[in-house]
């Protein structure tokens, strides 16, 4: 305990000296850090003084370890690590303070991949490292728990997290706060896992069974603990998808719809949180389950549309807009379809092309030519090359004839009969598609927004 006391005071000193070290490599005056400068001009960086032998040895040893790790020579890395441990005795307090974290990072990586390593060895290493210096306790505990999770040892991981959760040292700093929240949230996630397993079991049990009551009582206890654990973390701005999802699922299960809605709304709309499309998707799915009115669903998807116009849900969004009574929604429906097809990942989405072909006809039949022209004007100089090129006509026809027919119809309507894509497809002679192509030609003749006759 005495040792850790002195470590702590040194760590406080460290925070002031660390900055001086950082300045060393910033010789340009630009503020940029050049890690490779040291070797170019060692004497300049160290002010003419040569590094001490011990420092040279340890830094060489460190680079050997890193090299061995990158060459997957775990055995060798372990041997070097054995020697590197002496850096903990460095007389330079700065280096001594930085050492535990480096040792933990490299050591845990070695033990993760080393062929002869096992869980016991990792546990022993982690427990020892936790108590060298105090600043790393929480971080190491969390990573230790994740390692145990990865090896399927949920109970041990849970115990580990519980231990770390109650750990305190000195005044709570903000970085400690976040870490403790994370630790609690992971613990909550583990409890959620146990809960959802129980839920599975429960669903298989008969309601009249004697066991059912005890099991359901068990579940109730669990949920209360979990909600405490998960709730704290998701208040902090960040991306917490798995935590939010499991939290909401539990709230919903126990009928706390308002609580769930509040969590999701907060997660999606709080401006302090980074823009996260998943937050809107969760909210939309929740509202859909709740059978919320169409207006509400549209307003959620509208925001998702602004963030990720290429999302899969956009086709669903289009369907909602199509069904809506408002004219502006009909216009937006067309916009959404065009926007989906702008993206490289969606060029072969046959549903989107089918929707567009159908909706174009519908819109033009409804004499909204201006809408189509508005959308087309910003795309007419690059869609022909992007979608309706000769290359794509040939390759689409070869790979997916149905897609080619839908695209050809859109191409014909938007850029006229002269369009290469349309011309190529309309010339094809195919038994199954003959009728379709004939119909396509008729539609293009009727609805094409480019009318050479006029």
């Amino acid at each position, binding site marked *: 305990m005495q040792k850790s006391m002195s470590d702590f005071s040194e760590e406080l000193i460290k925070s002031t000296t660390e900055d001086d070290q950082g300045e060393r490599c910033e010789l340009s005056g630009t503020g940029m*850090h*050049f890690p490779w400068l040291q070797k170019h*001009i060692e004497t300049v960086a160290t002010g003419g003084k040569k590094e001490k032998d011990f420092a040279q040895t340890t830094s060489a040893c460190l680079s050997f370890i890193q090299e061995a790790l*990158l060459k997957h020579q*775990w055995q060798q890395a372990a041997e070097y690590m054995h020697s590197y441990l002496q850096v903990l005795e460095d007389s330079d307090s700065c280096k001594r303070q930085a050492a535990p974290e480096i040792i933990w990072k490299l050591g845990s990586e070695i033990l993760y991949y080393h*062929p002869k390593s096992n869980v016991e060895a990792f546990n022993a290493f982690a427990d020892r490292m936790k108590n060298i210096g105090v600043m790393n306790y929480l971080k190491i505990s969390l990573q230790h728990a994740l390692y145990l999770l990865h090896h399927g040892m949920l109970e041990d991981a849970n115990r580990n997290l519980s231990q770390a959760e109650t750990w305190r040292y000195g005044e709570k700093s903000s970085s400690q706060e976040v870490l403790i929240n994370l630790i609690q949230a992971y613990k909550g996630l583990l409890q959620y896992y146990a809960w959802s397993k129980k839920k599975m079991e429960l669903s298989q049990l008969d309601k009249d069974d004697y066991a059912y009551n005890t099991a359901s009582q068990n579940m109730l206890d669990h949920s209360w603990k979990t909600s405490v654990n998960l709730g704290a973390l998701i208040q902090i701005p960040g991306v917490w998808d798995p935590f939010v999802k499991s939290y909401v699922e539990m709230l919903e299960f126990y009928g706390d719809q308002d609580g769930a809605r509040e969590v999701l709304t907060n997660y999606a709309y709080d401006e302090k949180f*980074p823009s*996260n499309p998943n937050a809107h998707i969760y909210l939309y799915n929740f509202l859909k389950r709740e059978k919320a009115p169409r207006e509400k669903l549209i307003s959620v998807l509208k925001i998702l549309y602004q963030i*990720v116009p290429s999302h899969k849900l956009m086709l669903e969004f289009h369907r909602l807009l199509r069904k809506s009574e408002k004219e502006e929604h009909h216009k937006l429906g067309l916009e959404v379809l065009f926007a989906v097809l702008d993206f490289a*990942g969606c060029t072969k989405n046959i549903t989107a092309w089918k929707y567009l072909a159908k909706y174009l006809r519908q819109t033009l039949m409804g004499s909204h030519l201006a809408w189509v022209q508005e959308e087309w004007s910003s795309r007419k100089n690059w869609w022909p090359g992007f979608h309706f090129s000769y290359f794509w006509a040939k390759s689409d026809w070869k790979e997916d004839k149905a897609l080619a027919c839908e695209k050809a119809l859109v191409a014909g309507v938007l850029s006229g009969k002269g369009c290469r894509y349309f011309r190529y497809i309309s010339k094809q002679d195919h038994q199954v598609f003959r009728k379709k192509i004939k119909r396509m030609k008729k539609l293009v003749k009727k609805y094409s927004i480019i009318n050479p006759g006029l």
Partner: protein
Amino acid sequence: MSLTCPSCAAGETHSPCRSPCPRTPRMGCRTWPRAFSGSRRPPGPFPCCLLVLLSRFLWDHGDIAFAPLGKLMLENFKLEGARSRSKKTTVVSVKRLLQDLDGHQPWGCPWAYLSYRQRRFSILGGPILGKSVANLLGDLLHEELVMRWEQLLLDDAFTGGALAWVPGKTPRVGQLVYPAGSTLDKLYFQEVSLTPGGNPQVLRDPGHIQLRGPVRQVVTRTVQGESLLAVRSDYHCALWKVSRQGRPAPLQVLQVEKGATGISLSPHLPGELAVCSRSGAICLWTPQDGLRRVYKDPDTLVFRDPSPWRWADFTAHPRVLTVGDRTGVKIVDTQGPPGCGLLLFRGGAEASCQKGERVLLTQYLGEGSPESLHSTLHLICTQFSLYLVDERLPLVPMLKWNHGLPSAPLLARLLPPPGPGCPRPLLLGGQDGQLQLLHITGEEASTPRLAGPPQSLPSRNDSLSAFPVLEPKSQWRLQERLKAPTIGLAAAIPPSTSTPILSLFQLSAAGDVFHQCLRLQADPGPDSCAPTVSWSPQATACCSQWLKALLEVPPAPPVWAAPTFSHRRLLGCVEQREVEGKVPEGLRAAMAEGRLLQQRDLGSLPTAEPPPAPEPGPDDELSKRLEAAWEGQAAAWWERRQGRSSGPRQQPKRHKRRTQLSSTFSSLSGRLELSDVTSPPPSPDPEARPRPPGTPPSQELAQEHWARGVPSERQQTLRDYMAKLPLREDALEDASAPPSQTSSIRATRSRQRTLQDNTAKPPLQRDTPEGAFVPSSQTSSIQATPSRQQTPVLSGSQRIRKKPRMGF
């Protein structure tokens, strides 16, 4: 010839020319383009235009400008041959002055910048030469120093890489496109065929296009079956369309007045090119609409950073670009209102960046095809870490990994998966030749992950051990050549029937193209044999040919070297003492030239038997000799010793000693190199000792001479050591001869063994290609070697940068 783009403001960055056909260089019009436009210099006493004219005059007609002054000052200088021994301090000896300027340091101290003579000269000349000359020279010096310093900190000219692989008609054939020539101003097209075995074949002599400036970046894309090639020079960018036959047809040349920092080709639409300029403008060139400025901001995105470096790339939306600088990356809609956009990456808390961390490279990882799983991912590299950012979830990186590269990561290539269901290899190249291989997996719905631990690939420096051991100077030259910065990286995966192969090409700043072949290793068990890391016979032959060509070229005289200790004075002393003529002329000449001593320099020395090594046992000669030496009677002892051992040679004893020594040596080396399994076991019989076959006995004799001057007790060791080295002239010609092979095999096996020892049982599913290093230089680079050696590439390119010529 050049048109100014109507959509750019007057004098703005780009103006397209019609075609990249060669024109004659216009010399002199922009001798020092940046010397008088920099804002950091306060305006001098002269108006700027006058200063330019004056500088040009002084530069071009130095004889006229300075001759009268020289005549005036004649009495203050003592020219060569003038015998006046004036003690006046106002007379400067020209010979000595020139010596000083040559780097001769009378005090023998490299840190004494000024000799008293130079100081005297400057005091004498100062009032006469006037301020303007000193100012001009000072400016030039300052500019040069600033440039060198910036380059030392970070040379970002080759960001993105100047080597590209253009796929050809069949998947097996393609073209490597890279710059060569002493100033990297020739763009070579080398057709290469990839064999299933992994040994690429150079198909015919490369074609080339002569350009008007050094090539900094070569980019290629194949969009909708069309192969496009874009090249960035310092002040120009050019675009070619490569036909299926591999013929490049020029499409467009763009002039960038402020200097281009990056180009990228659209993965969606054929021929679209984004160009970034130092002024902070991003322009998009499309075949339909021509050139259009889509973004302009002279300031950096997140916080103030002085670097004018800008970068742009495409995104999953063909009309949305990423714009990057040292502080962050922004997504910009080219069709939207100017200036707006969303930050994709910020050097700050969201990515938990370190202090002083800056963006060095950004790259769009999608390929434009809908099949690609990573159509929304962007790679961002800083000095410390690598980030994968999804454009749908900006600011929060999907993946961060500390690459720990000891040089700037300016090159990255994401490759298609080598097989169905395999993770995608991502290559990361550091400027100093380090290469790292990562495997990225993850479906579109899930976050990208690293599959297995990242891996460092053997670098060019690692192949040094596979070359035969050379004499120190040649060895040094080879080492320097291999150490040249990497300026290009390209990879191709040839379709193969059995194990997938990754062909990796690297371009070094010295103009060499290296090839490396990686084979996919299917999940090795802990007991499986490690794959061989080796050179193929063709590669060995190619490398020895390359090495021969390299060493045939006389080394370039150093442009300027830091002043070092004077050896001339020392030599003078030696000459005076050894007037008796015992040391032959050759030796002195060799020393004066700093050459390695050779047999002919030593002349016909009396060929005495080499002094035998001390004998162990009761008759301890070594201690006796040391005793004699201590008392100052070493010579007498030697004479006694000579007289005694002139009798019949004691062969058996010598053998014994030798074997003893060699065994200690080999055991020592074994301990040092961890490769004792491969070094030949010490045999008790001296005749069975491995000896390079075909080494004539005279060779050994020569080595004995070489070893003269080595303390006698070391000679035996030295001789043993020398016998192991393939120090033969013909070792290079006969590449498959055992000596060179033993060395290469030893290096290989030692690596093999360490691999074998440490083959880990991977906890994650792992398909890691193991590195097999086959550097092979292209014939072209060999042919180009002589001319390049005359002027070192780097200094040449610097000169070019200072005097950019107009037009291509």
